[in-house]
């Protein structure tokens, strides 16, 4: 796979490039600023883009803004955003702007060191899946659940909360003393209520992010 890397710290950039080489991927180009990222994409569109959030020129969320801009131009470009920020705001902005079924990853920079896992993430995102760093989800779960999504029924809410905790359908059945079909029906109505429609595998992640977005 031809992958592009946007990251302003040279050693990190080279490190990521070496990690990708371990996985048998080619680094198409490297960019040190968000402006460079946009320009390079016009010349040579990669199969997947890995970009840091905090980048020059403004050293704010320039990398994320570049990713969002690229989403407009190239809706099918899979993007993995690297960050040091454990909050879910960046991930949410990225997912909200994604067309259903576009590969999106939000991974903490420190987690790149787990190389086999990171390569899995890259490949999953290239295969149009959503991958969110488990630490981000864990951090969100520590927050107090606030009164959001009032249109959900108590039952839907209960199921969503368990989903956010990473429970499988079978576990949810056990905990709530419900049959498998009932749980599936609740989840399906939940996706409809959250306007997630008929997207595939990423629905769970999106629902969780939606639930936890405050």
């Amino acid at each position, binding site marked *: 796979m031809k992958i592009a890397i946007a990251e302003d*710290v040279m*050693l*990190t950039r080279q*490190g*990521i490039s*070496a*990690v990708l080489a*371990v996985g048998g991927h080619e680094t198409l180009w490297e960019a040190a600023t968000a402006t460079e990222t946009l320009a390079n994409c016009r010349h040579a569109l990669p199969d997947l883009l890995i970009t840091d959030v*905090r980048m020059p020129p403004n*050293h704010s969320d320039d990398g994320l803004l570049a990713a969002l801009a690229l989403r407009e131009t190239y809706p099918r470009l899979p993007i993995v955003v690297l960050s*040091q920020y454990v909050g879910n705001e960046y991930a949410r902005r990225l997912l909200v702007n994604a067309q259903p079924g576009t590969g999106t990853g939000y991974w903490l*920079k*420190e987690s*790149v*060191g*787990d*190389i*086999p896992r*990171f390569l899995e993430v890259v490949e999953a995102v290239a295969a149009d899946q959503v991958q969110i760093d488990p630490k981000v989800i864990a951090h969100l779960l520590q927050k107090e659940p606030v009164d959001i999504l009032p249109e959900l029924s108590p039952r839907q809410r209960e199921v969503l909360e368990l989903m956010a905790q990473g429970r499988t359908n079978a576990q949810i059945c056990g905990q709530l003393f419900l049959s498998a079909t009932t749980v599936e029906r609740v989840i399906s109505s939940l996706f409809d209520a959250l306007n997630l429609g008929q997207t595939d595998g990423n629905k769970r992640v999106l629902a969780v992010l939606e639930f936890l977005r405050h």
Partner: protein
Amino acid sequence: MATLLGPVRASCQNETVSSNPLLLPPWRLVASWWIPLAVLYLAGGALLGLGFIFSLVALPLLGLVLKILALIEPTRASLFLAIAGGEPHAWRENGRGFVSSLKQTDWWRTLTWREISWRSAFNALSCALLPIWTMVLVVVWPTTFVVGYRLLVGDGIVLTGNRRVLTDLDAGGVFFVVTAVCVTLVALLYLTVGLAWFQAQLALQVSPKFDRLQRQVRLLAVKETNLVSAFEAERLRIERQLHDGPQQNLAAAAIHLGLAQVLVRQNAENAEQHLALAQGQLQEASEELRSALSSLRPRTLVEDGLAASIAELVTGSPLEVELNQHYSVRAPFSVESSLHFVTSEFLTNTYRHARARTVAIELGSDEEGLRLLLRDDGVGGANADHGTGILGMVNRLSMLGADFCFTSPPGGPTTLDARINSDRLQEAVQ
């Protein structure tokens, strides 16, 4: 030591104030707003004073009139000092406060006799100041001029024969006229500004105790808010420093360690290279952390005290610093650390904004307390609105309960004169 530790001017205590116009050289005074505003201020004062005198006729209204004057006068005085002296704080505080203070005033609060007499005396005085000034302008000035001319050059000109002064001028006469006009004009300018300055200071001093307390409460509230935002700014700075420094290094180290692990497993040759890179990143992270920590709590300050840490600041500064220390004690850490950061901030501000070449630092201690005097030769005009630096300094000093005076008139110099008396030092120990 006595010269170093002279008393801080009473008007300066615990506030940033405008500079004293009487200390300005004539060319700066002429170029400033002091003169037109002084004339306006004096004239306004005379009008208000006249109003007061007329209100004596309607005695029942006296209380109300006094109340209005008591509100107007300190505001007028603060505005005059603030605009002419280029001092931001008083302007903002009083400029915005007037309308709301009119609304908030308890109109039915009983006036004390002391207030009434103070206010009456003040208004009578401000009413009198303008005539005094006019008399000087119209009578004393020309008279001095004519009499002087008679004494020096003239040969028996009578006052009514002024015309001959103009016709008979020789070279000496012209020189005398020009010099006399210049000198007396300058003296007159100083007199005008001096009178206005005097009246304004007096107005601020004699404003009734209740109103003064109310103003102080408002000022404290403003300071509290400033303090919070200064803390926030400091937290943001630390967050950035840690994010852009150690956190980046650690993330890079984690990546290279991960690579080394994979490569060792594959028996690849370049694993060692990634280990070395990771080590380099870890070293850099610890250096970055050290620098972040030392900006929080400088080692020299902790171990060797304020004198040493200021000497270190001086060595590290790109400015030419004239350091004068008579400081041999160890004050409580909170005090030393505040004075250290104030000095550091002052040097940074001077370097960044003041276009100064030199800074003078005096640090002294005696049985009365500590004194820190900072002065640059820059362009002045430092304004608390342009950054948190000044606010930070003012807040730190306020929290210490220091008596201080920060002045930075346009044209410079910027001066900070702070002293902490020994009682405060005792409290800080506890």
